[in-house]
């Protein structure tokens, strides 16, 4: 095993489709178009009389276009995983991480929700938690779910996820479990070097991601309040929970703007132009929340003293746009809220300067007893 071989990275900037050439732009346009049709097919149908994805889903015997999407997602993710492991699979961390992520998504993210309704069960996505899966915290949803699922989603979101993030960093979710992260690290891997690393992009990230988090929390609270008083206050109910697309409510606006536009159309569609973690870095409320816990928790990236040669491989290949080099060259072990712990900075470092650790207290220099 070549522990840290980088053969898979050598030609990144010599491959045009990975660097915003016409093929890269065409790829982005195609993915954007796909997501527009996926999310807004009813509108497409209204204007064209044609429902491409639903039609295709029915043709292949799937219940609706969302199952078709789940199926395509799994295929693309597995193909991406083959590409990823071909390039970076010489590291055990990369193999275990991507293997786990693909396994979780194919089973919990696709097979289980597909199979359970066949046996009269509820369609349930066990790999998503609030605030990413915000509707699982709506009182109506909790009421409708079987009790064990309701307990699972509440305890998972409020207890397990934060505790794991405290001890292992947000990577346990964002890089080992999550579907968005899983797609980014497989299908999106060819474009990871395109994530902006400027100070300006970091400022934008902080402003936008906490705005979305605040929006997600506010919406959850409003929907809960509406559950109890909505009947008595119809205008409040319409403002918060109105389901009609054409007169906006808080819920439909969040679903449209955050759920469809930012997570799907922009977050995934623009992989080939701005890197694969646009959504995770700038908009995901779950990443924002776990990031805050990570800052207070035990995960860090440790920097070996004085060994950095400032080459920039870590910064270039950080999919979250963290300027890792700025810490490495100043001997500063660090924890950044946005770090999803993909491990690529440590993997590509030609001097072995970086290491992901679950313990902030390890001293850089261990005491040596004079014999």
């Amino acid at each position: 095993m070549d522990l840290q071989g980088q053969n898979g990275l050598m030609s990144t900037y010599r491959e045009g489709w990975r660097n915003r050439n016409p093929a890269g732009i065409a790829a982005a346009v195609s993915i954007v178009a796909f997501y527009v049709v996926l999310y807004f097919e009813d509108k497409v149908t209204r204007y064209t009389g044609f429902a491409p994805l639903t039609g295709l889903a029915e043709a292949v015997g799937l219940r609706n276009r969302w199952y078709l999407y789940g199926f395509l997602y799994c295929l693309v993710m597995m193909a991406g995983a083959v590409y990823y492991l071909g390039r970076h699979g010489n590291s055990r961390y990369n193999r275990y991480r991507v293997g786990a992520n693909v396994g979780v998504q194919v089973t919990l993210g696709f097979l289980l929700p597909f199979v359970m309704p066949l046996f009269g069960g509820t369609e349930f996505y066990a790999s998503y938690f609030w605030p990413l899966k915000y509707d699982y915290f709506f009182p109506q949803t909790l009421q409708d779910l079987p009790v064990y699922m309701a307990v699972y989603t509440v305890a998972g979101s409020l207890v397990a996820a934060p505790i794991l993030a405290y001890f292992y960093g947000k990577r346990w979710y964002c890089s080992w479990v999550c579907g968005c992260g899983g797609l980014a690290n497989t299908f999106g891997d060819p474009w990871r070097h395109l994530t902006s690393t400027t100070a300006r992009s970091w400022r934008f990230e902080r402003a936008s991601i906490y705005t979305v988090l605040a929006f997600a929390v506010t919406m959850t609270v409003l929907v809960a309040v509406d559950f109890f008083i909505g009947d008595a206050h119809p205008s409040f109910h319409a403002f918060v929970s109105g389901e009609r697309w054409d007169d906006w409510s808080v819920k439909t606006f969040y679903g449209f703007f955050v759920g469809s536009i930012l997570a799907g159309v922009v977050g995934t569609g623009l992989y080939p132009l701005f890197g694969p973690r646009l959504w995770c870095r700038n908009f995901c409320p779950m990443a924002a929340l776990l990031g805050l816990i990570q800052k207070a928790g035990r995960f860090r990236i440790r920097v070996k003293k004085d060994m950095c040669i400032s080459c920039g491989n870590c910064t270039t290949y950080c999919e979250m746009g963290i300027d890792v080099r700025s810490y490495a060259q100043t001997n500063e072990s660090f924890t950044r809220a946005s770090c999803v712990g993909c491990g690529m900075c440590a993997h590509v470092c030609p001097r072995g300067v970086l290491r992901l650790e679950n313990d902030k207290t390890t001293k850089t220099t261990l005491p040596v007893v004079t014999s």
Partner: protein
Amino acid sequence: MSTHVVIVGNGIAGMEAALGIRAREPSWPITIVSEESDHFFSRTALMWVHSGQLDHRGIEPYERDLYARKNFTRVRARAVGVDTERELLQLTGNQDALSYDRLIIACGSAPRRGPWPGSDLRGVGHFITLQDLEWFEKEVYGAAVRERPPRADAHLASTTEDSPYLHRETATAKRNRPLERAVVIGGGLVGIEAVEVLRAAGKQVTFVIREDWYWPMAIDGRESAWIAERMREHGVDVRLGENVEAMLGDDDGNVRAVKTDAGEIPTDAVVVAVGVIPNTGWLTGSDIEIDERGGVVVDDSLTTSAANVFAAGDCASVRWHDGTQRPEQLWYTGREQGRVAAAVALGDDARYARGTWFNSAKLMDIEYTTVGQVESDSDRRADWFFEERGEVRSTTRIATKDGRVVGFNLLGRRWDHEVLIGFIEGGLTLAQALDRLHEASFDTEFVPPLVIPNKARNARSAPDGESA
């Protein structure tokens, strides 16, 4: 009263000095004279720009607005002399001399040129400067495919014939067909980098090494055999113990072959990687003292023989831990020297003191860490050696002297040199060091730990000289 600081060199030592001074003196005018580039970049990363793993912006450690933000004035010109009496730095072209209150010379290294006939042929070059990179990229790929750094040619208005920053014509363009094969001469780090990027481009490579094994300065025969094996696995024609005699050219002045004592090696290009020398030719004739290696002689406070003139980085000849005076051409010592030079220029009583030696490198895809004294000429030293051939392949060599560990030479795994320095400074015995070796492990998560069987623990090779 403001003090004008002039820094010759935009590399790691010069940039650290500039940042160090700016951190304490927001208003001092700081002028950085650079012939090579507008932007500070990591010279150690040139190979990745060549292969396409990084782009030019990627190897620049700071965003390009750094000079504006820090109020550094940049001059793209070649310095040609110092008038220490009038405190003037002379430049070529129609550039006015710069008057300084403090002068920091951090002009780095230039490639050592090959001594062989035909070394001036088209297609023969080096891999040290940004301009070398551009030549080498064009030679291999026919063109530099990515965006060039801004104002890549700004220095051409102010340079001299002997500058290491001139652009070179490629033999590939003249020959009008793509490069198929190349020869790399010199068994050191830049040589193996040139080999690696040529293989990444799918070219045939012959690596000509004068010594009996690759990089004898740092690694021993057993370690080097593995590196050579790995190079051959990657399709490199490794020639050991072969001496270059001449470069042979065709009628157009393009190199066509390298002649060695073992025969002729046909080639389309040659990378000469036989080391670097301080880039100090321009100081000849000034009254700044230069030693026989070309280094600017400095004392422990990095002050030269002239008042208010300091030197840092590759061009400075500093006192080593072993008491000798010579240039120390490493990235992190350049950075440290830049910091010390800044402090001294600010009036501090700072001293440059190198602790226990350490370094690291990557040889093809094998990582290398060294700490302490492992050179084969150390007297009364014995080596303990272990080669791991499991899921991980690695070698561990621990040098001892008078029963205490004095050095580590480690290939294939990652180690925290600071812990190993602690072992040496703590005076551990070999047995103690082996017991505690795991404390220094820096491998990524899930890598199986190094296990040293008892049998191997107790094996001792004979003192050096007998075992080699």
